[in-house]
């Protein structure tokens, strides 16, 4: 054990005392895609006590270019990502207790999973889940680390309840039409750079070096060589519904969640976003065509073919996913294309 973690304990901000702290901590990883794979591998190698991983998706060929825990074999088997990650992480470090859940990280599930957790790492691909993580973090006073990327552009922010502003202070509402990896593409170095920022923050929090925690919102574009660090302390809003004086944790309320319903007698799921959207169908159509999707449309809707499913999206954000009765699968397809 001493030898195994020697290079990390030689690093003085961690030391032997820090290593013992890392060993005693429990981290919750929401998502096991690109950011989830990399963060989970670093924390497993670092010797965290327990790692819980939640993911609703399975491994596909288009994941292999950047999702470092998975193999061609996992694609052939259509292995759920949580199961694939668990299998690989156990081989990397048998000291670490790995727990995997193949499920949707709904607000109810999050409230159940955060019990006894010291840190939450965001490795999701949508803002709805992030806002629920943000609320759960405030409700149970657990730090979390936001990370996201698309193309060559990435960003991260560390949120410490009671100390920093929360994601709701900064964004005020769920941004829709955020670009996703399925619409804007992604290169692996962008993923790794976000992982580096998140995992370094995670180690600081696990060893309780609170002074070292970064308090700015960082973003960068590796292709265009832009870097920016934005101070956010001013964003802390006393009226914020997630972390302010009269907090209601709005994103833990199922009323504010995307509604998905199986349509009666049809192999179709309807998805309705919490607020009416105004989607620029022309722009979306162009983006999807460039990515090789078969898209047809008119001024009111777009029809996109995705494997065996067909997604029909209306400009108010409502969508029909034909070819499935599985609510989680339908929501996954929707959030992949629309953020």
């Amino acid at each position: 054990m001493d030898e195994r973690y020697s290079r990390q304990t030689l690093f003085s901000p961690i030391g032997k005392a820090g290593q013992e702290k890392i060993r005693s901590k429990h981290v919750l990883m929401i998502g096991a895609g690109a950011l989830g794979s990399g963060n989970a591998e670093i924390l497993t190698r670092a010797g965290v006590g327990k790692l819980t991983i939640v993911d609703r998706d399975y491994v596909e060929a288009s994941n292999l270019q950047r999702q470092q825990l998975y193999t061609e074999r996992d694609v052939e088997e259509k292995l759920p990502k949580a199961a694939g990650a668990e299998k690989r992480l156990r081989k990397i470090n048998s000291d670490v207790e790995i727990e995997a859940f193949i499920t949707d990280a709904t607000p109810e599930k999050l409230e159940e999973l955060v019990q006894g957790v010291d840190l939450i790492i965001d490795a999701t691909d949508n803002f709805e889940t992030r806002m629920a993580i943000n609320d759960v973090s405030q409700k149970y006073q657990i730090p979390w680390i936001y990370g996201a990327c698309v193309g060559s552009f990435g960003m991260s922010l560390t949120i410490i309840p009671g100390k920093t502003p929360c994601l709701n202070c900064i964004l005020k509402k769920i941004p829709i039409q955020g670009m996703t990896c399925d619409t804007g593409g992604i290169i692996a170095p962008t993923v790794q750079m976000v992982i580096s920022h998140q995992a370094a923050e995670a180690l600081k929090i696990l060893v309780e070096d609170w002074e070292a925690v970064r308090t700015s919102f960082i973003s960068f574009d590796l292709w265009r060589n832009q870097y920016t660090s934005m101070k956010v302390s001013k964003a802390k809003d006393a009226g914020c519904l997630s972390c302010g004086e009269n907090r209601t944790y709005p994103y833990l309320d199922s009323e504010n969640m995307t509604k998905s319903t199986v349509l009666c007698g049809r192999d179709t799921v309807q998805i309705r976003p919490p607020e009416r959207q105004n989607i620029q169908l022309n722009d979306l159509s162009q983006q999807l065509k460039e990515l090789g999707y078969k898209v047809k449309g008119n001024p009111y809707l777009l029809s996109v073919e995705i494997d065996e499913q067909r997604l029909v999206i209306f400009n108010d954000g409502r969508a029909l996913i034909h070819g499935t009765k599985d609510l989680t699968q339908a929501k996954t397809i929707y959030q992949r294309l629309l953020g």
Partner: protein
Amino acid sequence: MNKILFFAHLRDAVGEESIMMDAKGKTIADLKQMVLETYKSVNLENVMTAINEEFASDEDIIHEGNEIAFIPPVSGG
């Protein structure tokens, strides 16, 4: 004059990494409107804004020489 910086897909929509505009005395909301008048395909609805690398809201006033950055939140992971 003020330097306005665009990140990620905003940069692609504008066609430049930065532009110069005189926004002295205007609010961030006013500036967004000015940008939209020139660059019609830019969507600034959900963007985060920084004045001199510090978080700014729509009501904040821009001073001479301030550098403004528009940063779109992204969701991929």
